């Protein structure tokens, strides 16, 4: 058993768990934060995306015990039904989902991705590595390629992200 402190959405949690427990399973099964979803459990679908130390990662591909003291933001820390983030409101407005299973991962991923773009990070489709352009459709699609949507709501997801990125820049 490993003793780990996780600071989730600003609140400290002490976790006693087997070394094999992933961050995803710790959040869902040990802390009861079931907003983060398990899709493929192999880092291919992005449903489990959370923000750790300001970076979006796949919570299924990291062990909880590797994150002692780390600050973690899950979908529960981004917004609540009566207090949605700008990005969440944009997903509602643009109908950026059907079944909704990938949505927490899409929201966590896009929230951090918008910050990456603001920091000037280029992407595979950026023509100029040294001064990448604003977030257009092609840039958003490339930067979000780690989040699959089984219902293929992609066009609406892209529209929602583009609107939220514009609002915040």
């Amino acid at each position: 058993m490993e003793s780990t402190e996780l600071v989730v959405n600003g609140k400290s949690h002490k976790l006693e768990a087997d070394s094999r427990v992933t961050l995803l399973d710790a959040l869902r099964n040990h802390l009861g934060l079931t907003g983060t979803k398990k899709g493929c459990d192999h880092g291919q679908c992005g449903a489990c995306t959370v923000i750790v130390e300001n970076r979006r990662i796949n919570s299924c591909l990291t062990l909880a015990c590797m994150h002692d003291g780390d600050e973690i933001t899950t979908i529960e820390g981004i917004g609540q039904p009566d207090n949605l983030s700008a990005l969440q409101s944009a997903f509602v407005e643009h109908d950026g989902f059907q079944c909704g299973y990938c949505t927490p991962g899409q929201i966590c991923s896009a929230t951090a991705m918008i910050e990456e773009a603001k920091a000037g990070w280029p992407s595979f489709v950026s023509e100029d590595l040294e001064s990448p352009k604003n977030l257009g459709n092609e840039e958003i699609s490339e930067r979000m390629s780690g989040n699959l949507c089984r219902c293929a709501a992609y066009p609406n997801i892209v529209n929602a992200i583009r609107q939220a990125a514009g609002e915040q820049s």
Partner: protein
Amino acid sequence: MKPFDYARATDRTDATAQAANNATFIAGGTNLLDLMKLEVMTPYRLVDINRLDLSEISATDDGGLRIGALVTNSDCAADKRIRSDYPVLSRAILAGASGQLRNKATTGGNLCQRTRCYYFYDTAMPCNKREPGSGCQALEGFNRIHAILGASEACIATYPGDMAVAMTALDAQIEIENSAGDIRHVPIQEFHLLPDDHPEKDNILGAGDLITAVILPPPVDAKQIYQKVRDRASYAFALCSIAAIIKMVDGKIEKAALAFGGLAHKPWRDEAVEDLLIGQSPSSQLFGQAADQLLAEAKGYGSNDFKIPLTRRVLISVLKEATQTGADA
């Protein structure tokens, strides 16, 4: 996942001592944990090296860069010096994986990632890399993603990464510390191994060896290109990729460094191809000869036969772009 002990390394000496005693390093873990869930890899003890002081990119005395082994792929690709002076490396990293994975994947870990051969991943199947001596199902099975250069009858798996392909064209050196505290530097071309009779060994690392950095030589003023061909537009491994660094002077090719991904058990480099190009004026005939030279020994295994003409066309296209001779050259 099989049970394992977990320990966080306190410093490099502690890390290499534990690894010398058969423990396995974990950094980003994005490939290792995937393989552990499938029980393709079953370490008895993990040594977490994430809090070692290896996360800096710093200038070297001769004008190059030292990339710490724990620098994430994201930070490496976004580093201003790498973007301006080694764009082929930024491009190669950004061509691989997803934003989430690049945020965890590290420079040292990326070098050590395992093949994506379907049979290596399927523990119900024989695989000489996973279980030495058990056989290779890929030889006569599904081998669309497999090697056309440097393979053996024991293994036709490919090294899957992009970052190391660019580093190979850049003549990078790998800095390795062993459990005695000795540090050595290995040219990246000598780091990964061909499968021969021992495909279970991907690279030259021995027990207790820790990659501490990748060192890039001073930048060269040359055209740098990373071209990757894959089955999807994003988030897919290379069927064929080329890192090209080409310098033109007075209409002739003065310098040519070419490294290839998706074709072999290691990032592939063939000096005979570069020698054939250097000193020559670019032409379609010359580029065709370069492709002939590269692919002289190429061998397909059925489903991957297409990689031979594909690689030929991608190489010619990259050389035209790099020498700015366009489609009509």
